């Protein structure tokens, strides 16, 4: 079998010799394991390995991209990418300058979950499944555990040669309760960059999850309309990702004149309390890395500071075309796709309010926790809570069926009027953009309060 290191070393000298403005190569080796339970039974267990790579070439502003599993005849694939780029290109190539980097970023073998025996992983999942099934009136459950380890070699025609390893662990548990033709579900998503212990010891949460599924059978549905809404740190993290994160990705903006006018730096989006940050440089989270997939060092980027738009997320191309600094946010889920502008670890910075301060003066509102998902069209977005309660006279009251909330980025962020002191980063999510999902990211926030938030219901 060909080792990607050997292939990479062979290519490094030749990349400069093609008639292209820029060429980069990714070579990737990965292993995954996956364990799934449906109901009481372990349903599937599998292991995979993959080797693949891609070549991306830029000529006069046009891109060519070739991906492959077969590592033979790489010079021919480089030539194909260059020919494609030549066919497309008809202007000047623009890429923000970065220094060539030669570096190796390895993960210690001890934290690679692939080296852990399957029996040990199964033991933990068995414990969780037993807890779920101790709950009366449960219909069924599902547990999906996955881990992956990969090594990516990045090299480009500027002389960069970066070898990075990364590990990713995810666990999703769902409990399903049914009565007649009524079916309700409750879920919990956990994730970790490389620390298996982060998904251990969650027995209490798993128990609550199963109980919640059963309680939902008798919970009422909220009536649709505008409410004052309080979001817990998990859901507020999804909110900041959907409501603002995607709009700050410069690839939506850089070739769109009208959007550029709307997204001028300095524009006011929220109150002076509001700070939103994206940072791959924060260590140890699922969105963390040292270099992005264009070999650009990770940065901490303020998107909103004191309510005003102060930055956005860039690839080398979007940064050059907007005359801004590159931020190291070009990411690809794997070698089958070119890197595009993505979020990493995105969060709202904490302020002073306690949860009591936030809820205390709400006469009638909705307390929404946990997540099912979220989507955005840039202007409008939705995010759905996995868990919801009415707030009555300053107190959390009866449980509701899960709610879907929606907002408009130009008004909803301004309606945030309280930001808590309890920042938490949630690692259970994956982000989708174009065909590329799920990409490991982390989202976070303290508790926040939003006035006039539209909630769907019957």
């Amino acid at each position: 079998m060909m080792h990607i290191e050997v292939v990479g070393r062979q290519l490094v000298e030749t990349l400069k010799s093609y008639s292209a403005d820029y060429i980069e190569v990714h070579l990737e080796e990965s292993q995954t394991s996956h364990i799934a339970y449906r109901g009481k039974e372990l349903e599937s267990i599998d292991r995979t390995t993959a080797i693949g790579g891609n070549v991306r070439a830029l000529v006069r502003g046009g891109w060519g991209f070739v991906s492959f599993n077969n590592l033979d005849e790489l010079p021919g694939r480089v030539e194909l990418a260059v020919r494609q780029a030549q066919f497309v290109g008809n202007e000047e190539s623009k890429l923000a300058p970065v220094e060539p980097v030669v570096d190796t970023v390895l993960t210690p073998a001890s934290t690679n979950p692939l080296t852990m025996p399957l029996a040990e992983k199964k033991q933990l999942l068995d414990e969780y499944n037993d807890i779920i099934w101790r709950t009366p009136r449960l219909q069924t459950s599902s547990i999906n555990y996955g881990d992956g380890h990969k090594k990516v070699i990045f090299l480009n025609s500027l002389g960069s040669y970066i070898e990075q390893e990364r590990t990713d662990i995810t666990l999703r548990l769902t409990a399903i309760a049914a009565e007649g033709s009524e079916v309700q579900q409750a879920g919990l998503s956990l994730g970790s960059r490389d620390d298996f212990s982060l998904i251990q010891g969650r027995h209490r949460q798993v128990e609550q999850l199963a109980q919640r599924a059963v309680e939902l059978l008798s919970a009422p549905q909220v009536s649709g309309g505008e409410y004052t809404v309080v979001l817990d740190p998990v859901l507020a993290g999804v909110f900041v990702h959907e409501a603002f994160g995607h709009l700050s990705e410069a690839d939506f903006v850089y070739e769109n004149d009208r959007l550029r006018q709307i997204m001028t730096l300095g524009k006011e989006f929220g109150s002076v309390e509001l700070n939103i940050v994206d940072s791959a440089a924060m260590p140890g989270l699922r969105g963390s890395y040292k270099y992005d997939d264009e070999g650009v060092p990770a940065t901490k980027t303020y998107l909103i500071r004191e309510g005003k738009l102060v930055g956005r997320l860039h690839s080398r191309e979007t940064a050059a075309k907007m005359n801004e600094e590159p931020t190291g946010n070009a990411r690809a889920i794997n070698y089958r796709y070119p890197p595009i502008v993505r979020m990493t670890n995105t969060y709202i910075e904490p302020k002073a309010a306690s949860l009591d301060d936030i809820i205390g003066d709400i006469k009638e509102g909705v307390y929404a926790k946990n997540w099912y998902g979220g989507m955005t069209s840039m202007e409008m977005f939705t995010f759905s809570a996995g868990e919801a309660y009415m707030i009555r006279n300053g107190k959390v009251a009866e449980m509701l069926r899960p709610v879907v909330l929606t907002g408009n980025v130009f008004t909803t962020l301004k309606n945030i009027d309280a930001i808590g002191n309890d920042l938490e980063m949630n690692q259970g999510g994956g982000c989708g953009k174009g065909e590329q999902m799920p990409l490991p990211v982390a989202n976070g926030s303290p508790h926040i309060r939003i006035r006039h938030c539209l909630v769907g219901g019957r």
Partner: protein
Amino acid sequence: MESILAEAKKVAEEAEVFMVSSEETPVQFEANRLKHIQSKQSTSVALRIVRQGKIGYAAATQLDDRQELVNMAVETAEFGMTARFELPSFTSYPQIEVFDPAVESVSTEEMVKLGEELISTIKAHTPDLVCDAAVSKEVISVRIINSRGGQANYKQSIFSLGIEGQLIRDTDMLFVGEGQNSCHPIPESKTVAEVVLQQLDLAKDRASAPTKLLPVVFTHHGVASSLIAPLIAAFNGKVVLEGASPIGSKLGQLVFDEKLQLWDDPTIAYRPASRPCDDEGIPSQRTPLIEQGVVANFLYDLQTAALAHTQSTGNGHRSRGGLPAPSPSAFIIAPGKATFDQMVADIKEGLVVEQLMGATQGNILGGDFSGNVLLGYKVENGKIVGRVKDTMVSGNIYQLLKQITAIGSDARWVGGFLNTPPLYFPSVSVASK
């Protein structure tokens, strides 16, 4: 592949090797201009074994390390589920045409021309629109062999064309879009362009929606974005077996409006969702799911069918390189009699929903949906008066599909998976600012 099977047979009672390889060429336009040409080659091989009665599974992208693949499958078989099924022995397959060699020979120049033509037609109508478009051709080869002498192989071609347009006025954003795919080359962009032009015309003016129950017409895209995800779960034999499908115990019972007919069909010639057999080598068949409102069948793969004491419906599907699981191939909803204009003319005050955002991110199993109207129109006195915004539409599909006012006469493909007419419901919950 044969040598992997031979290695596996040394350590397992049963074995199956599944291999899929593809060559895809997407041509992409960004902000109205050609931006990216890609070429993607991919190969994957998956080994399923039954060892000491238990299922083991492993997949890889390289064919040369047979022993590693077998070892991984053996390792997982130690913990695997007990196999209840028998792999198919030599079988004959229905003749289902899904390969047209003309797709392979479409040149990059022709693909670029098709995309440019589509963008320029739409820009001629609305010059300020910013369009992203993609034209793609792909050839996929599938081969399955197993230890009982079963073997299947087929080649499939897919050509697709899609566009998304964005119109921004101040901070107001309008999104329109349409796509089309086929196993034949798509020679012209007219069909896609017409849908987008109609969306632009209908969305020209703004209107506001009230917060109350209203009659609502879901267009083809509206049906796809709101109502289908719960049905996919409900007819999945595995969900039924677990007792988590609301219709699981209702086989043969009238659950939906008598006008509603739904079936799964991988046998239509030259459709991207068609194939002669499923991913376990079981011959493709058309499976009725709802017949005159009555629950007719559920969808099964081999293992789930065995557990449920029934037969596979040929719906074993491998997603993301994993073990086969039941999954529909293509959902077809039979057209009715009402034209779109007749349905709209019938409404005094109501909505037409073209695209509901986030609708499937809730309790899908229970049939609930709730989403933001990304594209939808207000109807007043039988006429579409403009586009609505900041509006949520919510409901439960089991309640809605019990009483359908009318089913549209014009059925269309939405993506490769769904063929549906518009559906018109008497009363749906609408919330607006």
